[in-house]
C-alpha cells in the first residue's frame, strides 16, 4: 500500500511539473506574439463589430448573451462551434485581408476583422 501511495505522489508531482512548464511556455509565446484581441457578444451584437489587427493576432469571441451564437466566416475559412453563454472561440489570423463573419443562427449579426 505504502509503495502505491508513493507512486501516486510521484505521478501528481510529475503532472504538476508538466502543467507548470506548459503554462510557462504559453506565457513565453504571448510575449513573442502580438497580444490577443477580445470581441464580446452582447445584445446580439459583436463589440467591436469591426476590428483592425496585425498578422498573427488571435481574436477571441465570448458570448455574453443568454442565447447561443456562432462565429462563421462568410467565406467559411473559420467557424466556431455553438457558443452558449460565457463560452469563447479563438482564431488566429495569419494572413492579411478582410474577413467578414456572422452568426449563422442570427445572420443579422455581422462583423469584420481586417488583418494588416
Amino acid at each position, binding site marked *: 500500500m505504502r509503495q502505491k501511495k508513493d507512486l501516486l505522489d510521484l505521478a501528481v508531482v510529475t503532472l504538476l511539473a508538466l502543467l507548470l512548464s506548459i503554462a510557462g511556455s504559453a506565457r513565453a509565446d504571448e510575449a513573442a506574439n502580438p497580444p490577443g484581441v477580445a470581441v464580446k457578444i*452582447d*445584445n*446580439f*451584437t459583436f463589440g467591436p463589430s469591426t476590428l483592425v489587427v496585425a498578422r498573427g493576432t488571435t481574436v477571441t469571441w465570448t458570448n455574453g*448573451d*443568454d*442565447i*447561443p451564437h456562432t462565429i*462563421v466566416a*462568410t467565406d467559411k475559412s473559420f467557424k466556431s*462551434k*455553438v457558443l*452558449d*453563454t460565457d463560452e469563447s472561440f479563438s482564431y488566429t489570423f495569419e494572413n492579411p485581408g478582410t474577413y*467578414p*463573419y*456572422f452568426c*449563422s*443562427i*442570427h*445572420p*443579422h449579426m*455581422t462583423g469584420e476583422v481586417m488583418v494588416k
Partner: protein
Amino acid sequence: MRDERDDSADDVILHDHHHDGVDRRGFLKCMAWAGTGALYVMQGGVLKSYAMSALKGGSETAVASGELSFVQISDSHMGFNKAANQDVVGTLRAAVDKINALPVAPAFMLHTGDITHLSRPEEFDTVDQILKGASAKDVFFVPGEHDVLGDDGKQYLERYGKAAQGSGWYSFDAKGVHFIGLVNVMNLKAGGMGSLGPEQLEWLERDVKHRRSSTPIVVFAHIPLWTVYPEWGWGTEDSAQALSYLRKFGSVSVLNGHIHQIMQKVEGNVTFHTAASTAFPQPEPGKAASPGPMVVPAGELRGLLGITNAHYVKGKHALAVVDSSLE
C-alpha cells in the same frame, strides 16, 4: 366568443401608411403576451384562434362545433435555464395541461420549432416525453434554428423528418384542409433573415399547383413568413415568392413562432399568426436592446401567459384582431 368581438370594435385602422391593413397603433395592439399555446379552429375555411386560458364557459360550445381543431405550441427551448425561465419543463407541462383541459381534444398538435435550446439529444427526449402526456397524440414539427445547431439538422431529420423532403418540409391533409410545414432556418446568409431556398420553393409550387382554390391552406414554419422586424432578423427573405404560389387560394393561414409573442396580420387572402413561446417572452420589436429573453418579475411569468384571445374575421378587408388585455 362573446366579449372579444366587442373589444375588437375599437381596433380600427387609423393610419395605414404601408397599405398593409395595419397601422402602428393597430400593430402594437396586435402584439400581446399569449397563452402557453393557442387553439385553432377551422370554421368555413376561416381560421380562428383562441388563447387556451380563455376557453371556459360559453366559448366551449363554439370551439367544439368547429370543423377541425388543432393546437399550435412553439419555442419550448428545452434546456434553457437562464433568468427568464429556469423551469421550461414546468411551463411546457403547463401547456400540455391546458391542452388536456380542452373540452374537445384537438385532432393534433403543431410545434413550430425551437423544440430545444441547444439541439441536445436529451432536450429532444424531454420534449417528446412531455408531449406524450397530451390528449392530442400526433405532433407535426418544423425545426427552429435552435434545433439544427452543429449538425445542419441531421438529428432533427432523424427524429421528426423521416417522411419529409429536403431539410424537413412536407405537407398533409386533414378534413379537407391542406397543411404545409416549411423550413426557413437552414443555410442562412450573412446579413439576412430566414430563408426557404430555391429547392423548397420549387417543391411548394408543385405541391399546391393542382389543388382547388377553395382548399383552405395552413402554412406553418418557425420564423415569421412576413417581415416583422428586419433589424432583428424577424422575417423570411424569400417568403414573398412562397406566398405568390398561394395567391389563388381563398383562405391561407400562416402560423409561425420564433418571436415569442402573439402577433397577427391580414394581407389579402392571407392571415398571419405568431404564437407565444412556452419558455420565455421576448420583447416587442425594437423595444429592447436585443431580441433576447425578457426577464419579468418573479411570479409574473405564468401570469403573462394564456390570457389573450385572437380570432379572425372573414372577409377580405377585415383586419385580424387580437384582444391584447393582460391579466
